[in-house]
């Protein structure tokens, strides 16, 4: 292994450095004659939370399974933690975490026993900077299964099982974590806990996270960057704010005056509101300024794909500068 400093020095500018955790170039996948992915490109940097969105059948799961090393791609280059997942070995596996959607496996096992046994698989892969695995008791508390620690898996509710899935996914203290629809079936409380956990992993552990979801509100809360997969390609790549501004720079200003309601779209809502007050003062009531949400963006983009103008939408976002944070 080269030291990080050497690796940094030997890389030409612009090439992926050791902070690039995922590097996908022109990834293609077809099942028979059905082309699911027709050229996917994106990168992820250390500690980033990426949320992959897209309509059903767009290839989100296919993409994530290729990156996990669970599925062979048809063509293209894929680098995950500096290796090709199709060929990577057990050392690589130890650095990744996968949150699986279980349903009835290990029904006779107790929560703590299963987690402890799986945790032991990571013991040989500890490094001075990354203690592996997590302390099992601590992790059980962290995902909120303290009271179920000695319960059999077959007695867990759907939400409790998902919490255990998450615990198993992160027990090896992964540098990169994959989650395919992790919060499906979570109640609002469990969802909030899960969001806290994701923030904690990315902030404190510097874990890079790639997750898919259908919950756009969740995507907006969690994502450093949102990727929208449609028509077999990434059609949008940026923070939720950047994407929203790309679809429309206008904000909607609503207010009422003398019992009548008004709506006005403007790129500079602050200036408009200042003028509004200067002109009407106390008469202005029920003021509301609303920017385009991720949901507006998503619907607009996906619709433009489904109506057969994919190039238009892709062009609209081609100019988008994705800031390297």
């Amino acid at each position, binding site marked *: 292994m080269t030291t990080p400093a050497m690796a940094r020095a030997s890389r030409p500018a612009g090439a992926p450095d050791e902070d690039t955790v995922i590097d996908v170039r022109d990834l293609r996948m077809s099942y028979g004659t059905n082309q699911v992915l027709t050229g996917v490109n994106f990168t992820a940097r250390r500690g980033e939370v990426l949320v992959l969105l897209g309509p059903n059948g767009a290839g989100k799961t296919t993409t994530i*399974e290729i990156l996990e090393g669970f599925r062979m791609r048809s063509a293209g280059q894929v680098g995950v933690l500096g290796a090709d997942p199709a060929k990577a070995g057990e050392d690589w596996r130890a650095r990744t975490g996968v949150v699986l959607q279980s349903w009835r496996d290990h029904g*006779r096992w107790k929560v703590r026993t299963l987690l402890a046994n799986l945790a032991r698989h990571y013991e040989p892969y500890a490094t001075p900077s990354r203690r592996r695995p997590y302390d099992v008791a601590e992790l059980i508390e962290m995902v909120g299964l303290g009271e179920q620690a000695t319960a059999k898996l077959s007695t867990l509710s759907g939400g409790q099982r998902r919490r255990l899935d998450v615990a198993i996914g992160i027990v090896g203290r992964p540098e990169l974590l994959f989650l395919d629809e992790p919060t499906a079936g979570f109640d609002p409380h469990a969802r909030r806990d899960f969001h806290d956990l994701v923030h904690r992993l990315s902030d404190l552990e510097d874990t890079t996270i790639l997750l898919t979801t259908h919950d756009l509100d969740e995507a907006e809360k969690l994502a450093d960057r949102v990727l929208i997969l449609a028509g077999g390609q990434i059609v949008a790549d940026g923070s939720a704010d950047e994407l929203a501004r790309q679809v429309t720079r206008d904000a909607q200003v609503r207010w009422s005056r003398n019992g009548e309601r008004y709506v006005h779209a403007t790129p500079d809502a602050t200036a408009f509101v200042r003028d509004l007050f200067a002109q009407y003062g106390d008469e202005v009531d029920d003021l509301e300024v609303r920017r385009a949400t991720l949901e507006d963006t998503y619907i607009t983009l996906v619709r433009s794909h489904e109506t057969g103008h994919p190039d238009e939408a892709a062009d609209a976002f081609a100019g988008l500068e994705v800031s390297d944070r």
Partner: protein
Amino acid sequence: MNPATHAIRVGLNRGWIEFTNSLRSPQDLGFYFFTALGTLAYLFFNRHDDWEGLPYPSVVLPSILGALVAFGAYIGPMYSLAIEREDGTLLRAKAVPRGMTGYVTGQVLFQSLSALPLLVVIVVPSLFLFEIITERGMIAWLMVLGIAALGLLAVLPIGMIVGSLIKGPNKIGTWGMLPMVIMFGTSGIFYPLQELWEWVQVAVQLLPMYWLGLGMRSALLPADAAAAELGGSWRTLEMLGVLGAWAIIGLLLAPPVLRRVARRQSGSAVEAGRHEAMRRVQ
């Protein structure tokens, strides 16, 4: 620590937990209880018969033990693999470093240990209920354990390979049971091999089941009972040779077959399995 041997240790821990889970499971205990009850009842009703001066239970018990060990070693891993491939157990193993090593080690230990309770619940009551004549005493029972261990090594991989090839639990009935009925029906355990056609006799002697039964008989029956066997001998060397050969073939063949199965595991494959299972229930 060496990651490979570490994974085997974790797998042994896994197998032991599976075994203790099984001993606490009403389902598994019920299986042991009813198998023992059926076997003991059969021996009990025939306890006054005799064969060439030996009490009947004494004569058939070795064959029954051989059959049960072979049966458990075949059916156990076959079921486990067919089911655990569909429910995501295998995928979980694949998602942790060297998880497949741990899973397979665990299976081998668990399935081997599972033969013990079955032997105990049949042998111990038999010793009290019937006149079981063993000329060699304790040594005979140690031989039984040794031959059982070798038989497990010979048959377990067959069960694993068949389980890997079956497409889901709903196919166990046809593709898992059919070979079993044929292999066991002709194994010489249920009736003497000499009564079958000659080509069947040759085929059966290529399979491990017959030799496992023969080995058990050679351990427990008096030396002159060998006269009733094919060739009038226990053929101890051949027995060890055939069982050993199957163990080696199995241990060489099982890993690539299991790797092939594991390679096909993914979240969407498990999801498809779940839909299939839901459809079956409805």
